[in-house]
């Protein structure tokens, strides 16, 4: 009975979403305030019913209702309870429901905050979000309802959740990632509302900025978590694979980063107006493209669940309608935008322009690498894969260049900065960075690329600190009161930029200083590697809730002292008859010791991989710093002031 309630409630929410997509917009064109005012209640109703559906699905999972096909395919009565909950988004149908639920969450947040907006803007924004929700609800109800029953042959037990997904990283990674993806729909809706009302002044940028910053922070967190999960769960110690689905999340991140910067210019200086609108459309389109790539199964990937062609076609159609209509609207309206104030080629605008150009080019190169195999096949040239070396070759130089600009840009002032002043400010930090990086790379034999990257890293740190110091030391008041006066926005930027540097150092060190080996080892044997001695004490058999495992007990010594006790496992999940490698690691600030079991070679011996990963934690710590930066800048005071004069 309950699953039918879930399905019915989904249909109801589709009805409300459809009304939300039509009624307030009609109200705007007819100048009918009553129709406009329906936006808020319709949003709340839509969200409410989606939430009911989600709760129903959660109950089906927690009560082991295997008559529901989706539950029986992705759960098992022996599955630990928290994985039963996260199994809701463990596969296609449920993750779409999560997508829609999060979209409703963002819509509700906009509805609750809409009193700070001019009276026709809020309803239009909600209406645009309603259109997106309508598309996805239609998609769910027609191709992938999670409430389909498998009656009357109810299986006695479920097929279990994919063991790869039975992990704490996967409990939180998808919701965070979706919060980011879907969050960009808000910036998109603001951009569309600005196009519809023709009010393309800088105020829409101010409203969109905090939403964009928060979505960006969520997306950053989602990507960071995903990378961390892949590192310890996939068992080969990699933290980024340039897998199509990772790229699908990286593209909106790059575009979103560009959007954050371009919104700042539009708000502060009133320039780049039409570009910012276009970028908001592109960022959300890339989020949708990501959903399409993941869900349609057109790309080979560990993430591609389903290869159902109707689903692919439906999402592709949705994508084309949404992007096509936005671009059409853009082309009709953007010409009306008056050219804003001229911007100085030596001011901060110019640096942010460079930022936008490079980020856009980066997005395009990732897009090209991801879609190239599809293009190649469509043109009947053969089946290919584009590997990590392509992305590394193209991405690294451009990213380093971007970071040089990131170091210098914040020092410049809006409109106009004397080039001689910038040169004077940058010369000493530049020299110090290059020398320091040179000494370090020489002492540790790191090579030329490391020298270059470290120089850039130090340059960013020195110039960021110098900028802060210049800001707090000018004026008569003391340093601390002045430091407190600086806006949160500024500190957010500082944190995010420094976070990127921390990640850069991590990436650099892990790719140049890590060591790995594959050995054959039996109980009682010791292997010396990279200055550590790995002694395998014994093997044990374990029984988990839904698996059995072989566990190795390894003691790691350095200079005769015990530094770590590692227990990697080889698990066998009974319901799916699937083998899984559980790596074991000892985390540290400058290095991780990482051991994973290969195969059982004979009665005693196993093959085993040993990694010493240098500075790998820094990558994710930098990610966390960026998240904090994003949140901090969204909390800036000036976003909280009400709009004065409701007819802005």
């Amino acid at each position: 009975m309950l699953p039918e309630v879930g399905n019915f409630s989904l249909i109801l929410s589709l009805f409300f979403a459809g009304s939300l997509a039509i009624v307030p917009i009609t109200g705007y064109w007819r100048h009918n305030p009553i129709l406009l005012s329906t936006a808020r209640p319709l949003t709340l109703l839509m969200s409410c019913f989606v939430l009911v559906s989600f709760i129903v699905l959660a109950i089906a999972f927690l009560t082991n209702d295997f008559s529901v096909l989706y539950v029986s395919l992705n759960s098992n009565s022996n599955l630990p309870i928290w994985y039963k909950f996260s199994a809701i988004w463990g596969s296609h149908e449920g993750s779409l429901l999560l997508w829609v639920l999060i979209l409703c969450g963002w819509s509700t947040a906009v509805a609750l905050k809409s009193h700070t907006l001019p009276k026709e803007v809020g309803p239009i924004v909600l209406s645009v979000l309603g259109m997106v929700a309508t598309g996805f609800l239609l998609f769910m109800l027609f191709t992938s309802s999670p409430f389909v029953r498998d009656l009357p042959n109810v299986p006695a037990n479920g097929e279990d959740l994919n063991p790869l997904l039975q992990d704490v990283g996967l409990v939180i990674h998808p919701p965070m990632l979706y919060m980011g993806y879907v969050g960009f729909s808000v910036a998109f809706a603001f951009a569309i509302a600005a196009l519809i009302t023709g009010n393309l002044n800088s105020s829409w940028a101010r409203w969109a900025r905090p939403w964009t910053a928060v979505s960006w922070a969520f997306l950053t967190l989602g990507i960071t978590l995903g990378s961390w999960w892949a590192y310890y769960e996939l068992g080969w110690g990699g933290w980024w694979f340039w897998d199509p689905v990772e790229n699908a999340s990286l593209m909106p991140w790059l575009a979103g980063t560009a959007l954050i910067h371009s919104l700042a210019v539009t708000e502060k200086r009133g320039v780049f107006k039409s570009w910012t609108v276009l970028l908001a459309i592109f960022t959300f389109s890339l989020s949708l493209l990501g959903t399409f790539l993941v869900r349609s199964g057109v790309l080979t990937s560990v993430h591609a669940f389903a290869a159902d062609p109707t689903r692919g076609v439906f999402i592709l159609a949705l994508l084309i309608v949404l992007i096509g209509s936005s671009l059409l609207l853009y082309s009709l309206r953007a010409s009306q935008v008056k050219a804003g104030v001229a911007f100085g080629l030596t001011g901060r605008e110019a640096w942010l322009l460079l930022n936008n150009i490079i980020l856009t080019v980066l997005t395009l190169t990732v897009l090209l690498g991801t879609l190239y195999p599809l293009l190649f096949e469509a043109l009947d040239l053969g089946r290919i894969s584009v590997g990590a070396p392509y992305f590394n070759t193209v991405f690294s130089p451009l990213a380093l260049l971007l970071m040089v600009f990131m170091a210098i840009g914040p020092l410049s002032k809006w409109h106009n900065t004397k080039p001689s002043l910038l040169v004077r400010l940058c010369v000493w930090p530049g020299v110090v960075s290059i020398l320091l990086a040179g000494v370090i790379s020489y002492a540790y034999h790191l090579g030329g690329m490391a020298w270059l990257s470290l120089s850039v890293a130090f340059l960013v740190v020195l110039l960021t600190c110098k900028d802060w110091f210049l800001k707090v030391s000018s004026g008569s008041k003391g340093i601390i009161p002045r430091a407190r006066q600086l806006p949160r926005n500024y500190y957010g930027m500082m944190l995010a930029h420094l976070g990127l540097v921390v990640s850069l150092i991590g990436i650099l060190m892990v790719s140049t200083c890590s060591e790995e080996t594959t050995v054959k080892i039996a109980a009682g044997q010791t292997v010396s590697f990279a200055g550590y001695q790995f002694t395998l004490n014994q093997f044990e058999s374990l029984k988990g809730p839904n698996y059995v495992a072989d566990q190795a007990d390894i003691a790691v010594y350095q200079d005769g002292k015990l530094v770590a006790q590692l227990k990697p496992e080889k698990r066998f999940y009974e319901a799916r008859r699937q083998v899984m490698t559980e790596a074991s690691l000892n985390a540290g600030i400058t290095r991780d010791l990482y051991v994973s079991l290969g195969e059982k070679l004979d009665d005693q011996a196993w093959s085993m991989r040993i990694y010493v990963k240098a500075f790998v934690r820094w990558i994710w710590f930098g990610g966390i710093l960026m998240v904090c930066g994003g949140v901090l800048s969204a909390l800036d005071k000036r976003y909280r002031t009400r709009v004065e004069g409701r007819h802005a």
Partner: protein
Amino acid sequence: MHPVRRKRLITIAIIVLVLSGAIGLVLYALQQNINLFYTPTQIALGDAPTGVNIRAGGMVVKGSVKRDINTLFVSFNVTDFKHTVHIEYHGILPDLFREGQGIVAQGKLLSNGTFLASQVLAKHDEKYMPPDVANALKQAKDNTPSKPYNDN
């Protein structure tokens, strides 16, 4: 020149500069880093180049997996049920590697017809078949003379 026009010109020049740099990098990287996929039939017919990085895949032939006792050396055959390819690999096979299962190997074809793999991929669960392998099997089954995938 008019200052607004000059600005526009400089902006466009920068865009062109960055784009051309990126395109150069992309072309350079693509030239070196795309890996074509070949079916066992194509390899048997001599359509696949030797000595360059390619990918090959098919079903692992039952009973063909042989391991060295002292090292991590392993060899096996993959088939599309028309022709087979002998693959040699040194290292740890993925968890999902099993006889009778579809796999994709990346590496180089030697002139004696042996495929020296640098990486062996077997993804997802046992129901999952790599699309490349599924396609290879389908092609072999269709019984049409298989079309060479690329001309060089």
